[in-house]
């Protein structure tokens, strides 16, 4: 059995060592929001034209992206949870962390707005109202950047969501898109980043009800994975990508990206 398994592995390795192997590529562990909004489809061809380097994006939740990168399964990390990114660096997995761009989180909900929070600017107060009205709230529940930001707000609102989990507080344990689909299906409120929401196709009457609170700020950062800790990291190519993203050209490529005519990411490197 063991010999068979080994044979299968070698055979599979043999079969796949074929066409897809471009030699100049890097793997970027990143988040679904940047991928689903189409940002990478806009900026990566520009980078490739400039350098000839192919960027392969693995888009998962921020929590999973950081864990994958901590295993050495990626050359660059581009996510949105600054505290977790800094911990990634202090743990020795990354070289240094830099701000790339920002946008903001918004709270979306059904058009009928059963909790009466539409137009509020104080996000924590709005969440408190949703909790008091016990209207369904769909949470990512997956340790992603958005989930972490949402939990911080609940804490500020003084609501113990763990106690409400399963009643009005619904933890989907899924990605942003899946959570929005569920929220649209059950008439629940949800927190999401503006880029994902602007490009999301299945709104089902849901709309933005709360926005503009400074606490809804959503910062994206970039980290080069540490080649001393993970020798397989393509540090040279990864460094080129990081430098480009932070350069004037990279930053203006981000700024020029539009979804339905609107800018959804705002570059702020070096800020």
């Amino acid at each position: 059995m063991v010999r068979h398994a080994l044979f299968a592995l070698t055979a599979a390795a043999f079969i796949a060592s074929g066409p897809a192997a471009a030699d100049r590529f890097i793997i970027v562990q990143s988040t679904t929001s940047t991928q689903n909004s189409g940002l990478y489809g806009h900026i990566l061809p520009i980078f490739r034209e400039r350098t000839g380097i192919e960027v392969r994006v693995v888009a998962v939740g921020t929590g999973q992206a950081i864990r994958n990168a901590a295993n050495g399964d990626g050359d660059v990390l581009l996510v949105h949870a600054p505290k977790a990114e800094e911990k990634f660096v202090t743990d020795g997995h990354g070289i240094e962390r830099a701000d790339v761009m920002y946008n903001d989180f918004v709270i979306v909900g059904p058009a009928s707005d059963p909790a009466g929070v539409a137009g509020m600017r104080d996000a924590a107060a709005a969440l408190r109202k949703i909790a008091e009205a016990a209207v369904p709230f769909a949470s990512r529940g997956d340790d992603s950047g958005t989930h972490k930001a949402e939990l911080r707000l609940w804490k500020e609102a003084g609501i113990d969501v763990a106690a409400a989990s399963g009643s009005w507080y619904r933890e989907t344990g899924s990605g942003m898109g899946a959570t929005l689909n569920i929220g649209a299906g059950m008439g629940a409120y949800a927190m999401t980043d503006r880029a994902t929401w602007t490009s999301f196709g299945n709104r089902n009457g849901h709309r933005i009800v709360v926005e503009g609170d400074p606490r809804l700020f959503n910062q994206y950062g970039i980290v080069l994975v540490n080649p001393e800790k993970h020798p397989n990291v393509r540090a040279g190519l990864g460094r080129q990508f990081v430098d480009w993203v932070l350069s004037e050209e990279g930053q203006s490529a981000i700024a020029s990206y539009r979804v339905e005519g609107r800018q959804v990411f705002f570059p702020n490197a070096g800020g």
Partner: protein
Amino acid sequence: MDSFWRILGEAVSLILAWDSDLIEIVGLSLRVTLSAVAISCVIGLPLGAAVGAFRFPGRTAVIVVLNALMGLPPVVVGLIAYLMLSAAGPLGPLELLYTPAAMIIAQTILVTPIVAALSRQVVEDCYREYAEQFDSLGVGPFDRVAALLWDARYSLLTVALAGFGRAVAEVGAVIIVGGNINHVTRVMTTTIALETSKGNLELALALGVVLLAIAVAVNGAVMTLRASAVRMAYA
């Protein structure tokens, strides 16, 4: 019902438009799944036939395990394959993670138990008819397995198709070890998952119909081959 017909229409126009992205995705789906099924058959058919034809201590336990492994959840297979292939894992130096090879390995783990368990049953039924003949002719163990596999080949074709169906439809394993990277490891099922997460439900469903059409085409092709093989054998 309205939206159902619209989605069906969109699926048909997707197939008719046949743009290069779709061709690439369909091609990779077929390459990955057919490779995985082929490797699974190389391992699973002889394994299943041996368990079906021979009596040995612990045989019942082996059968129970094989049958149980048919229910392996794809996500679990994906995680196991990820932990093995990760740079931090034992096979990390091969640098196979996030390549089609990783997806083939994951699907092979998923499909091999199905091929082995089903072919065990097919061969065992076959063996009851042949046992006496084998004994009187003094056929050795290796030749027994080979003869049984050959004589049961048409039933075993259905076994391979069952494995194909399982592999081509799963998303949990390939999305973890492949990473759903555009133009590198994006297959039909991961594209459907991606479009669903973007809220493009109609496009996702239309792609699902395309996937179904591919499965029908592959099954149809195999059945046609089988029919002409049978005709030639009895002509």
